[in-house]
């Protein structure tokens, strides 16, 4: 087995004094792609937000290790520097800051030196092209007035430009049309390599087309209720979480 990229040990997370995640254990090896599924409201977004260090979520106990290094107490920017990336379910709009300036600032901050302008511009242009993005978006304010699909593509663009070790994708496919999902998937395929890891929250299989899924987790009642292989996805998308047996979203189909 490859070395473990992300390791979560007995993680308990609360929001406003309410326990959402109650003892999560999970390991993602480098080069692996894990999928996180589960009925709505079971804490999938909470889990990836907690890994990213969202201050709204309180880590009560447990540990999050990245490359063996404890990042549990780190702030979001330190985690980003350590190599974590989250594609937000609802990306923030930042008026007055263009996408290009933002990416250059972020990249400079991650690499501890400002990127070379021409090289950066070239790379940005290529990546945008690969994602079927209009080059004019580079000059637009970050996510301001972007459609849902454009926002998600922008998240994937950032993923490709920033090259993190671990990418967390929180329902990046939700609300997108077929073509946009295909583009997003293309971006994920371009990102994936033998060293990095992916952790994808999704409700359907489309975003995973052409990707080798190593492990599927099902979250229920604040715990990982079920873990299996790729075959789980088609089972769940066809028959709902009920097929997994007692305790797993008994009546909830998709």
């Amino acid at each position, binding site marked *: 087995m490859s070395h473990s990229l992300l390791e979560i040990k007995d993680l308990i997370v609360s929001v406003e004094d309410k326990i959402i995640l109650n003892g999560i254990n999970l390991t993602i090896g480098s080069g692996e792609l894990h999928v996180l599924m589960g009925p709505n409201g079971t804490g999938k977004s909470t889990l990836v937000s907690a890994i990213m*260090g969202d201050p709204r979520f309180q880590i009560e106990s447990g540990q999050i290790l990245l490359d063996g290094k404890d990042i549990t107490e780190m*702030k*979001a920017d330190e985690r980003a520097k350590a190599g974590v990336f989250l594609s937000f379910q609802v990306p923030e709009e930042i008026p007055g800051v263009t996408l290009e300036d933002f990416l250059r600032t972020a990249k400079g901050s991650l690499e501890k030196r400002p990127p070379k302008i021409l090289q950066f511009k070239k790379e940005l242009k290529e990546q945008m092209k690969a994602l079927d993005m209009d080059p004019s978006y580079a000059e637009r304010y970050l996510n301001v007035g972007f459609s849902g699909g454009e926002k998600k593509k922008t998240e994937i663009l950032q993923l490709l430009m920033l090259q993190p070790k671990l990418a967390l994708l929180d329902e990046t496919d939700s609300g997108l049309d077929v073509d946009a999902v295909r583009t997003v998937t293309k971006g994920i395929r371009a990102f994936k390599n033998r060293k990095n890891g992916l952790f994808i929250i999704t409700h359907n299989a489309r975003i995973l087309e052409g990707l080798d899924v190593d492990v599927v987790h099902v979250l229920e009642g604040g715990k990982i209720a079920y873990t299996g292989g790729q075959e789980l996805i088609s089972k769940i998308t066809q028959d709902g979480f009920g097929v997994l047996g007692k305790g797993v979203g008994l009546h909830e189909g998709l």
Partner: protein
Amino acid sequence: MKDFKEEKTRVDQADRTIYDVKDRLDPAYLMDSGITPEIVNQISKEKNEPEWMRLFRLKSLKLYNEIPLPTWGPSLDELNMDQIVTYVRPKSTMKAKWSDVPDDIKETFERLGIPKAERKSLAGVGAQYDSEVVYHNVRAEVASQGVVYTDIESALTGPYSDMIRKHFMKLVPPSDHKFAALHGAVWSGGSFVYVPAGVSVEIPLQSYFRLNAPGAGQFEHTLIIVEEGAYLHFIEGCSAPRYYVANLHAGCVELYVGKNARLRYSTIENWSKNMYNLNTKRASVEEGGTVEWISGSFGSHISYLYPMSILKGKKARMEFTGITFAGEGQNLDTGAKVLHAAPDTTSHISTKSISRDGGNSTFRSVVTVTEKAEGSKSAVSCESLMLDSISRSDTIPVMDISCNQADIGHEAKIGRISESAIFYLMSRGLSEDDARALIVGGFAEPIAKELPLEYAVEMNNLIHLEMKGSIG
């Protein structure tokens, strides 16, 4: 630092510094609690002014003594009115020692990378500096187009004396308020620009090229006349702090925009933080003309600043874009006024303000639409950002509408930086400070993009400096 020391020695030899003046205050002199007609006469005499100006000054002085301090706005209790006389005595050249310039300002110069030669002038220290040369070059270039760009004192006796007499303090009469009256009585220095009909001045004219006149910058008068179909961009001041020992600034700006002419007037004000900035700016706009104000307020202890536009002619337009950043110890009361006095006139006011570290920023405005202004439109939008809970931010707009064929819109918003936006940026690797600075920079972006590049860069630097609290 070495060259400054040399400079200082030279200044000392040539002039008394303001501290010398202070030391020499004798009891007899202290009995003069205010400005007397004798002082005003003396100012006028030193400047070799025409008689009408001397009488104008005396009339203004009378008004100054009659008009009370404003009953609204930031407190002026700590402004020592009795001391004003020491700022305006003709012999008290406003020179300070470089060593007296506060450290925060010196540091800013370093960080902004202002050339040493300019630092001295910006600090109000230098007696001579390279900008004089620059100024003369600019003057030669625009003069070939028939444009007049000169200091207003010499224009008063030259070939443009009639023009100045016709326009001087006609937009801002000394009776307007106490500090306009003060200005009328003791004004000194400033610029005069005349752009003939149809001429488009391609390079922006910048007033700090010629701030070397003794005492200028305290009570300077700017008079700009842009004739029919002409265009001018005038930039006042600069983004580095100007330090004066005397802490009252009561300047006056009068802009005459002719038919179908356009005047853009940009200011980035960053006076040192002991300054009372009581500046009056006003424009009148003829038919089809446009005045554009870009106004950034970063410095001063207290500011009262509300550029006014009088839309006199049909289809006259005004646009005002402003930003105010109030930090510790600052009470910046800024905004705009507009009078729609003709049909189909339009005004657009867009402001942003930021308060932090106990700073107090107020947006204040008046939009007046007279019965005659049929078909006029006005849109006001002001946004305020509070960066902590020890600061204040107030919005005090007035709309006075007497026309039933007008469209008036007003929007005001106040809020803070959203925590989720900070988290989003931090998740991409920015530190919390950088994330905040980036968001505030983005908030200010609509202003920055209206500025010439070098000013935009300096403004962004200023915001970053202010946000990191490395100054002051």
